């Protein structure tokens, strides 16, 4: 095999396909079982220190914040993060000291809101290490390779750039066209946290709106923890089985967590809580501020329900529902500053 180029980024989450098949056969149950549990139990059981983790959704869209807060609450350490399209998820996990290594497609930024003070500080000071670069499509396709049980997927992006040079991809000559082509190694995260609109107690999941890369990521995951706006009867799944994005045998734990994506956006349910994200961005400008945030919103609360009371309870959540449905105007600290 002539290899034209080998990216120098660290190869995280890759397994020989045969090794992964053996793992699947031994660890993933094909039986229809009631998988309902608590977040405390699920995170304690499936997220060991040092694990490689990834989040469903899109960084601040449909992110399982309930699971992320529980990881922080349990003081998980030395996690490696798949920064596929990382926004709020990676920022708080890095700031809390849970994540100390990250492969980056997108991270350290909050799109229109600006850069992330806390995680940038962690990276620039060396507390969090960037182990490899990649692009959004590139990461997405690393998960596709894993979902297909393949060692790699080819792509025509990243070629000729430092992004590729610092990735874990290799470049070969395509034996069909004779042109150089990049091969993206599969990525199987140890644990994936994913928030969905509804699922049954077995873990058969439906999502409204864009799937982003959750189809592939759910199938790439070794352990898949599902938080859901609601647990529905099996009947709802079986009456429209073509709506199932994730079948139960991919899922290890199911936790009912209404508003579990707050302060991120849940399509057709609730919009970004810009006041809360704004509070985070303001406090996280210093380590002390970030610590204050975690003390208030994570360590001092028993569980996610208590957190929801703290951020404004029913009234706040109703407002976010209205903004999502275009029934109330958006308020945002960063928007105020532009005026």
């Amino acid at each position, binding site marked *: 095999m002539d290899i034209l180029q080998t990216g120098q980024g660290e190869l995280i989450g890759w397994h020989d396909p045969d090794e992964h098949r053996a793992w699947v056969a031994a660890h993933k149950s094909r039986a229809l079982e009631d998988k309902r549990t608590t977040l405390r139990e699920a995170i304690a059981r499936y997220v060991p220190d040092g694990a490689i983790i990834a989040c469903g959704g899109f960084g601040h869209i449909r992110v399982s914040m309930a699971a992320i807060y529980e990881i922080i609450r349990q003081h998980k350490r030395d996690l490696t993060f798949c*920064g596929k*399209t990382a926004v709020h998820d990676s920022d708080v996990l890095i700031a809390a000291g849970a994540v100390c290594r990250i492969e980056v497609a997108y991270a350290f930024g909050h799109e229109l809101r600006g850069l992330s003070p806390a995680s940038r500080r962690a990276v620039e000071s060396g507390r969090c290490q960037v182990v490899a670069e990649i692009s*959004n499509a590139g990461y997405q396709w690393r998960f*596709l390779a894993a979902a297909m049980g393949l060692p790699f997927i080819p792509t*025509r992006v990243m070629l000729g750039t430092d*992004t590729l040079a610092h990735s874990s991809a290799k470049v070969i000559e395509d034996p069909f066209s004779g042109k150089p082509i990049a091969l993206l190694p599969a990525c199987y995260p140890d644990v994936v946290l994913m928030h969905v609109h509804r699922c049954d107690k077995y873990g058969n999941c439906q999502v409204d*709106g864009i799937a982003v*890369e959750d189809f592939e990521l759910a199938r790439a995951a070794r352990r898949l923890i599902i938080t859901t706006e609601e647990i529905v009867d099996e009947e709802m799944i079986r009456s429209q089985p073509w709506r199932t994005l994730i079948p139960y045998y991919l899922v290890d734990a199911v936790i009912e967590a209404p508003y579990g994506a707050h302060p991120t956006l849940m399509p057709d349910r609730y919009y970004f809580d810009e006041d809360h994200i704004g509070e985070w961005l303001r406090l996280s400008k210093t380590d002390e501020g970030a610590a204050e945030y975690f003390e208030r919103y994570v360590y001092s609360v028993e569980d996610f329900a208590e957190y929801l009371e703290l951020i404004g309870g029913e009234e706040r959540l109703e407002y976010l529902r209205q903004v999502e449905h275009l029934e109330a105007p958006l308020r945002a600290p960063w928007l105020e500053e*532009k005026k």
Partner: protein
Amino acid sequence: MNEDYTPTELLAYVAAGLLEDGKSVFVGTGLPMIAAMLAQRTHAPNLLIIFEAGGIGPQVPVLPISVGDSRTFYRAVAASSMHEVMSAGQAGYVDYGFLGAAQIDPYGNLNTTVIGEWDHPLVRLPGSGGANDIGSFCWRTIIVMRQDKRRFVEHLDFLTTPGYLDGPGARERAGLPAGSGPYRVITQLGLYDFDEDSKRMRLLATHPGVTVDDICANSAFELIIPDQVGTTEPPSPQVRRILREIDPTGMVIGK
């Protein structure tokens, strides 16, 4: 007169003017979104807007904050996946793409990863995101960024997203899709394209009130300055009114 337009309004107007009707465009948040919506409401009603997280052909009701925001698939023709839209791009279905950058070099290569050394960053930036993908597979990428000597550089600190790499034929030699690449660069000072022969950046037009000297003084690399340089047309009051309709809160345009 038109002189009370803001710099952002001008950028949006110039960017919108580059988009053709009946074509497709990969859109990010902020200015690209505004430009695409302006194009749809003026000369390009049948412009197909695509978002990298999966939204295809939405009827955007209010400006989205994120490219995965539910506004990006509001009354869309499809709310799909990143796999779907990135594959469509790789297969040649996406005409235009918008990119921003912290640094650009003469060949339109972009840096959004790091200022300083990669393993000892002075400033760590978000990385490629979808930029490398867009820069790799869109037929024509449009770069919108601030211009100064720290941003228009001879050598990037990090080549995140491919422009023309090191010159003519380099994209194809690297295995990137043939015939694609940077199309225009828009800054607060002017509008640029790329010289056919050298694939280096060339001044096309200055914005009203900007001189060629201003242009050159704000680039650390030598720009190709042709004999004839145009001046961009400022946005009309009608265009500005549409822009205010698109962004009533001033999220992007400002107040």
